[in-house]
């Protein structure tokens, strides 16, 4: 069985089943936005949602993660977490799955990162394919992440009265095995799936003004690197770090030790850290290798569209649109990249604050 079918009225039953199998995280509403949270009541799970405030990366690369415990006298270190628990990320969008694939590239590159791998091993991903573009900030079509491209265990597609579930791993198969209400998909289901995909092609349009190789080319030219456009982006930036915090592929961290009041026991943590912070590239002696907000913003963009392509042959923008959506200064990725694609106008690019949120 490669494709299974689940009737919508049986969804909650399945969620209850998943809850028993492992810790279940799914999107739910938080004020006017969405967040991934542990599922307490399956009725709170939202299947139609805008990208969450933070991507699910908080579960495999936590904001503040215990690395090890230690004592000073006698000097001893021990694992901070003896055993990691199994967990399921439910209804993950394809853009966020692409984010997990990027993290995998980073943390599996030698020397492998055991802290990430410990958590990754226990993860099961149940994806949810989008059929409605979320808003003007997302650029998932240009990045090729609006359709499933692997990296998940199960992928759900809403075909009206039921979900088609693509089974992509044994781990995924185990979550639907031996359930009377989940059956193999029939021909009719598969036809509907095909129809949905055809329909989707008509609705989802590329958001960037040029295909990716052209984007890469633009980022590779010295003119782009030196473009006054970055001064304009940096002028508006307040270095709040929101764009990097919400990015599914930003993985920078700092490591800090915290002592107990006994001054003999302590814990080593790693904490998210961002290239947008003032002190990020400052070293002993006060030298700053990336001075000023324009240079730091430029670095962020190059870390998405240029450097990882050179190093891993992979774009590190997944197109979720979070950085633009969260930016109170309206530094919008699509706008910046499109401006850069047009060297003649890039020099005179003026961004503006114009996207006042609609308050309901």
């Amino acid at each position: 069985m490669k494709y299974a079918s689940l009737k919508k009225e049986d969804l909650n039953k399945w969620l209850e089943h998943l809850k028993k199998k492992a810790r279940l995280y799914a999107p739910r509403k938080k004020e006017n936005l969405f967040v991934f949270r542990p599922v307490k009541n399956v009725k709170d799970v939202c299947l139609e949602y805008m990208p969450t405030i933070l991507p699910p990366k908080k579960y495999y690369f936590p904001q503040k993660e215990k690395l090890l415990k230690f004592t000073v006298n006698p000097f001893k270190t021990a694992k901070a977490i003896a055993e990691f628990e199994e967990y399921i990320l439910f209804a993950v969008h394809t853009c966020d799955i692409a984010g997990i694939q990027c993290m995998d590239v980073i943390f599996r590159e030698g020397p492998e990162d055991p802290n990430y791998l410990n958590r990754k091993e226990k993860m099961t991903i149940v994806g949810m394919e989008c059929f409605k573009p979320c808003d003007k900030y997302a650029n998932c079509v240009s990045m090729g992440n609006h359709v499933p491209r692997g990296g998940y265990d199960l992928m759900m597609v809403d075909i009206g009265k039921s979900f088609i579930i693509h089974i992509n791993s044994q781990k995924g198969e185990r979550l639907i095995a031996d359930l009377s209400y989940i059956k193999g998909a029939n021909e009719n289901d598969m036809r509907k799936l095909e129809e949905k995909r055809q329909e989707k092609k008509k609705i989802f349009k590329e958001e960037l003004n040029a295909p990716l190789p052209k984007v890469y080319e633009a980022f590779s030219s010295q003119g782009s690197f030196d473009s006054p456009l970055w001064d304009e982006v940096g002028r508006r930036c307040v270095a709040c770090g929101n764009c990097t915090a919400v990015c599914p592929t930003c993985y920078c961290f700092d490591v800090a030790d915290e002592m107990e009041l006994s001054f003999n026991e302590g814990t080593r943590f790693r904490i998210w850290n961002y290239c947008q912070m003032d002190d990020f590239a400052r070293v002993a002696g006060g030298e700053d290798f990336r001075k000023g907000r324009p240079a730091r913003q430029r670095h962020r963009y190059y870390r998405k569209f240029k450097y990882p392509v050179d190093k891993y042959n992979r774009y590190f923008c997944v197109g979720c649109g979070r950085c633009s959506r969260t930016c109170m200064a309206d530094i919008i990725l699509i706008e910046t990249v499109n401006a850069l694609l047009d060297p003649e106008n890039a020099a005179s690019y003026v961004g503006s604050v114009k996207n006042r949120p609609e308050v309901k």
Partner: protein
Amino acid sequence: MKKQPKPKVAFFDFTDCEGCQLQLANMGNTFLELTELIDIVNFREIMSEKGEDYDIAVVEGSISTDNDVKRIKEIRAKAKILVAFGSCAAIAGVNGIKNRTSLEVAKERVYADKAHTINTIKVMPLDRVVKVDYYILNCPPYIPEIIAVFKSILMGKPYPLPNYPVCVECKMNENVCRYEKDQECMGPLTRAGCNSWCINNGNRCYACRGLLENPAADGAKEILEKYGLKVEDILNHFTLYNDPQGEKYDQEFAR
């Protein structure tokens, strides 16, 4: 660990509401744990003894009279380590509002016909008068930070203040950004370290920890204007807690 004599700690207050000292009392058991490591010799709010022999002086409140200047210098001379405790001591805090008008006007507003009896000077944070070794920010101080600073003092290492905005911690806490709800917030310009305490609890950031070393005044002004704030409102937001720093922004925003 080798048994060392406990450092003697004294608490003092200047112009303020004494809410910072109250936060110590609010620490509960952790405060008792702390007293295992330090000897409190002077703490008006919780004890009647008044020791004048101390290693560490924890001082709250701003300097606002000539007598304050004399007194803080005396404290500094006796203490090996001086801690500015809370917004008033560290950045002058709300008291700084007084600096917006002339001293004569300020005195008359508060004391009316008795104004001539009052000795007062421009409000200052402690470090305008004496050297400060450690800062505990916030109004009132954030308990985990109080503990963190005391740990640093007892280990003899510096406590570097975060030089990034409250947004960094706020986003880690996955709060809905107030700007996304069309509400203003000083988070983007305010030094972090409070774990976005106010926003976690549905309030906005008032910049009580002081501004960043390098705030993006230009960008921030544009953002605040986007949300319909007038220049005076923006200035009030900037200076509610930060007038000694606000003087600077006064000029920037007056342009």
